[in-house]
Each structure stands twice: as C-alpha cells, then as structure tokens.
C-alpha cells in the first residue's frame, strides 16, 4: 500500500482483506472521493478512498443508504433507507477526512520516530469513529456558525430550538417563505464556510 517513495499511506493500516471490493462497486463514488482526498492532502488518494469506503460501509446504516442513493444499479423494491442522503454524505466526508489526517499524521510520526511501531487506535468501531468525527466537526461548525450573518444565525438557532417555519416567521415579523429561504441560504453559506475552513477547495 505504500507509495514508491516509501511514505506510508492510508492503506497501510488496512490489514484484514476486503470481503467485497467496494472500490469497484462504487467506482464513480470512489472517483469523486479520490479528488476530494487529494484536495484534503492525501499522498495516495485511491488508497485513502478505499480505506474510507471500507470503514464507512462497516456501519450498516451507511451501507444501506449508499446502496440506495449511490449504487450503480438501483435496488429494485428497496425501501427508503433510514439515513437520508445528507447524513450519508456528511458521514463519508467525516470518515475520509479522518483517514487522510491519519495518513498524514502517520507520515509525520514515522519520519520523526521511525523505530517505534505505530499503535492501533484502542477502538476503531463505527460508533467510536462517529463520536470522534462528530466532536471534531462540531468545533469547526461552531466557529463557522459564529461568522454567519446575524439573520441566518437567528433563523438557524430558532430551527435548532425546534420552532416551525410559521412560528419563526411570527417571531421575526416576516413570512414563512422568507424563513425557508433564510434556512436554506444559511445552511448553504455555513457549508461554504466549512469547506473553506477544512481546505475543501474554493469557497
């Protein structure tokens, strides 16, 4: 899995053989994720994607959602998955980012302390990984949220408080369509800021 130059890559940690070749099964997804991995700083984007897909799809809900939304062939008669598309995409992003950072950390670590073997994480289960990703994402989103325009922050905060569009509209003295517009623009603007912050390319 190492590159010709000898640098460790994302695949170095991958010891058990894959039961299914998710890289082929989700070829187009792998292509688009590979360009993302490169932007995130991976030295070997393909290996990073393979590792990220393997770990992502260990989560049954993620696998179910990926088969529904992204597989080349639509699973005929399949019910809608528990995870909506946005949860799947956020999960894939989080795992890929985690894998790329792991790869980069390992590269830096080995250059400095080459004689000490790399320790495996104590618990690499999907739940632990999800908690790690969520904690890290949450800090970034908090920072980006604070930089949003006040209107967007206010509307999104009220949504977080569980208010419906009509209730927000009454509270802010506007109409529901305006609230809906502010919600979508706020979310998309927040997404653009997170993208800029996490080095995902142009804003």
């Amino acid at each position, binding site marked *: 899995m190492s590159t010709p130059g000898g640098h460790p890559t994302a695949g170095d940690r991958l010891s058990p053989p894959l039961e299914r070749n998710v890289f082929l099964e989700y070829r187009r997804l792998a292509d688009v994720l590979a360009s993302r991995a490169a932007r995130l700083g991976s030295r070997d984007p393909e290996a990073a994607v393979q590792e990220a897909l393997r770990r992502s799809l260990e989560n049954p809900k993620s696998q179910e959602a990926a088969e529904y*939304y992204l597989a080349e062939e639509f699973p005929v008669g399949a019910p809608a998955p528990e995870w909506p598309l946005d949860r799947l995409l956020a999960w894939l992003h989080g795992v890929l980012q985690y894998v790329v950072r792991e790869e980069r950390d390992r590269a830096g670590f080995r250059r400095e302390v080459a004689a000490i073997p790399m320790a495996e994480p104590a618990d690499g289960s999907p739940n632990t990984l999800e908690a790690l990703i969520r904690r890290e994402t949450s800090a970034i989103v908090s920072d980006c949220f604070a930089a949003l325009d006040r209107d967007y922050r206010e509307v999104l*905060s009220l949504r977080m408080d569980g208010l419906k569009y009509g209730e927000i509209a009454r509270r802010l003295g*506007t109409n529901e369509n305006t609230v*809906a517009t502010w919600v979508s623009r706020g979310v998309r603007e927040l*997404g653009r800021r997170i993208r800029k912050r996490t080095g995902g390319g142009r804003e």
Partner: protein
Amino acid sequence: MAFASWAGEFASERAAAVSEEKLDRFARGELSPMEARELARKALDDPELFEELTYSSVARMDLADRKRQRWPWTVALLAAAAAVVLVLSPYAIRQFRPSRAPLVAVSGPPIFLAARGDSATVFRGAEPDSRGPRATGSVTSVADGSVSIDLGSLDGLWKGAEVDVLRDGQAIGRIKLATIFRDRARTEAAPGVTVRLHDSVRVPRAASLRAALDQIAAFSARGDADGARRVAEQAAAGGRLDLAATDYEDWNNLGAIAELGGDRLKAQSLYEHALHANPPAPARATIESNLARVQAVK
C-alpha cells in the same frame, strides 16, 4: 490557468443544471428519497456539485445533532432544578419574604461580555449621549397618509419590521415600517388601521431584546459597566427572555439580564448555553464566574 478557469466555468454550468430550488430544498432536507437519489447520481458526475452537497450536508447534520442534544440537556436541567426545589422547599418556605429584590449576586454583579465588533452592533452602538432601547413609543405625527413614530434602529427596528399600534392599552392594528432612522421611523398609513397622533407603538419583544443586547455589548466594549447594567435592568423589566441568542456573549448577557431580573434559574440556563457555544478562554472565565455566582445558594 486558462484550463482551470475553463474547467471551473464548465463545472459551474453543470452545477447550474441542477436548479437552485432543488439545492435549496436539499439544504432544508425536503427532498424525497427518490429525488435525493437522482441528485446524488448527478453529483457523482459533477465534483463541484458533490462538494456543494457534501458541505451543505455537514452543516445540516451538525445543526440537526445540536437540536437533538438540546432535549436531554433541558430535561436534565429541569430535573436538577426540581431536585433543588425539593431539597430547599422547607427552608425556602420558612425564609420566604414578599420582596421584589432580585436574587442576584452573592459576590458581585453579573459581568457582561463586550461586542466583538460585528456590523449590527456598530450600527446600533451606544453613543455617550444615547438613550437606551425602548420597547414602546408613540406616534409623533400623522400627515398626508404618512405616520412617524419615535422608535428606530436604536430600539431594534429595521426596514420592513412590523410594530403593534395600541390605543388605550388595546392593540388596534399593526404597521410595517418603510424608513428607519436611528431613533425614529416612518411609514405609510396601513389600510384598515386608523392611526392617530399619540397612539402607542410596541416593538416586538425579540427585536427589543436584540437591541438591548447590542447596546449592552457596546457599553461593555467601552468599559461602561453601569451603562450596560442600566440597559439590562430595563430589558429585564420588559418581560420574557424569549430570544434565541446565537453567540456566547449574547447568551451570557441574556443570562445577566435574567439575573438582574431575579430569575436565577433562567440565568443559570443561559450561562450554561454560553459555555456550550465554545467561548474563547477569557470569555469562558467570565461566564464561569457568572455561573458560579448564580449556582451559589445561600
């Protein structure tokens, strides 16, 4: 460089093939599963679209998680409050005195946090001779179908804001403001609402609180703790603190308003919110100090 530019334009054109309306609905979580699949399949051929969907998803999912987390937190706080009430109730009954003095400060007044210099705060910022924001005002002129009132941006109003018109304490209608000045505003008389000189007008509570918070933050930024406290006391007298704050300094300052109004439990909840909003170290120390004070029970 030229290729990159061309490629970017090409990607934008492809992204534009998916309507903004659909992207907006995706950002709000309104697409059906089949619509979502169709969009996801398009994104697999369009990296720029895939990026947009991914980062919108990251934003939306984090906000949704926070929404879910608020319930257990609120329930835990209520349970804790109920436990405190149960434990203290015999003592509280013995010690009860019908006093309206606020239950503040076992070791000093609440500490406000200063504005971080965002535009809204600067716009309504407290000048040395400025009056505080007001929740109610009056109609100062009615002429040629134009109505003027003595409330403005200083009081939290903005172009398009609606204020209630009251006569003899009864709401008689609502007017939408067209032109806003610092301490006054103007609009055309609304059909169906006969506004008269000296009718009262009332700022929506959320706007009034927003204005108070901005001015508290501005006073604090100037080091004028008395000015900030004065505005907070006025705001506390105005009723419920039903504004959803968005920053740690707003949460903290709302907590201070609640504390000055004598609502220690509400203040504690608001300070807790401030600590959950990831304040930087100096602000965190201030908020923790406020929280420790309201938690101290004597």
